[in-house]
């Protein structure tokens, strides 16, 4: 079998906390990875590399051990780009492993382990439930500046998605939210069914983060960038920040975290659902 090994060198030294304890077996090192909750895991590897295993799936190697999911399965990724991104995440860790910054790894683990054992249909229903309480559809009546902002920023996105998918989603000022007709939900359900399980995991994650189906679809369809989608999702907060001032340790912190998670989710969906081929065209003289 042809195995292509790509090595990724790191410059920084590490603390090999487990060097004395662990034998170079595949089970010992990786299985301990997520078990200690209280103590902080130190970075116990120097190199991160990827290799291609059976079935064309890519695996991540930390030094010489293969990465495993928290559920104990081998960590495999369908395509190379995602594998490289995950390897970069692991390589970015310095003395301690900060799992809350490794969003792509977390998404892959969820897709591989599926700890709550959800089916595609369950995920689609959960995602569509957000449509009834979609951020973009909830409007206020005062203050006037916010109303204008909402109309100027959210209406175009609503129009875009209504045209793109041929559906009707209104906006409402009442606490009950807009009435979403069944036809709209069916259209979206059909569209979501076309995504594979991994992409659906990512998509549901993004919808949960942005609290809006409309904005998520806009971003996944590449109509909005990540920064734009996050801005629109936090529109009221941005309005209040402009009015009352910015608090870095809360507002910026939340914004960067939301951006990171949304970007990871979007990248995850795009990489899991695309496939690129190169067709050679005959040169015409």
């Amino acid at each position: 079998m042809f195995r292509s090994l790509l090595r990724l060198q790191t410059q920084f030294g590490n603390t090999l906390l487990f060097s004395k304890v662990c034998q170079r077996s595949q089970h010992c090192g990786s299985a301990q990875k997520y078990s200690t909750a209280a103590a902080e895991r130190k970075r116990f590897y120097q190199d991160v590399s990827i290799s291609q295993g059976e079935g064309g799936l890519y695996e991540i190697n930390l030094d010489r051990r293969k990465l495993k999911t928290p559920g104990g399965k081998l960590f495999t990724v369908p395509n190379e780009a995602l594998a490289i991104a995950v390897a970069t995440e692991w390589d970015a860790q310095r003395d301690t492993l900060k799992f809350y910054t490794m969003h792509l790894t977390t998404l892959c683990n969820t897709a591989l382990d599926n700890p709550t054992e959800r089916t595609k249909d369950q995920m689609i229903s959960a995602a569509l439930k957000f449509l009834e309480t979609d951020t973009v559809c909830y409007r206020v009546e005062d203050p006037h500046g916010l109303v204008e902002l909402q109309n100027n920023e959210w209406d175009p996105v609503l129009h875009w998605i209504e045209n793109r998918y041929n559906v009707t989603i209104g906006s409402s000022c009442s606490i009950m939210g807009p009435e979403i007709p069944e036809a709209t939900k069916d259209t979206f359900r059909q569209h979501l069914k076309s995504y594979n399980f991994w992409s659906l995991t990512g998509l549901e994650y993004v919808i949960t983060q942005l609290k809006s189906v409309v904005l998520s679809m806009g971003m996944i369809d590449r109509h909005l960038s990540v920064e734009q989608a996050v801005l629109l999702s936090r529109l009221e907060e941005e309005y209040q920040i402009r009015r009352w001032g910015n608090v870095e340790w809360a507002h910026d912190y939340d914004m960067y975290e939301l951006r990171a998670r949304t970007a990871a989710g979007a990248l995850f969906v795009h990489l899991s659902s695309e496939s690129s081929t190169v067709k050679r065209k005959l040169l015409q003289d």
Partner: protein
Amino acid sequence: MAALSSPLRVCRGILKELRAIQGPGYKRSLAYGYVMDQFRKNKASLPPSNVTGERYCRAQQEAHHDSHTYLCLLESTRNHMLLHNLYHGKGERSPEEVAGLVGLRLPTQPGGKGWEK
């Protein structure tokens, strides 16, 4: 609404982030190789020398959006970490310090507490 910055800017941004992650040896990393590869393949150029020979290439737009997304991911994780360490990274104080805040001291038991050896 998809007015993204130019591919060159995005490429430079990603390389800056990679350099921040990996230090001086970033050019030898996997991510660097892959990113440069992708940018070369999808280069926006004039129609005569264009790789795909089309004026409006959907794959190019998709790749541009994806590169922007990856840049956003790298940049926001780094900023998030920065802010976390700046504001929330100090951890908890020990019981002695907490007592000292209000001017008290912890009691000492010569025989050790019940559960200590």
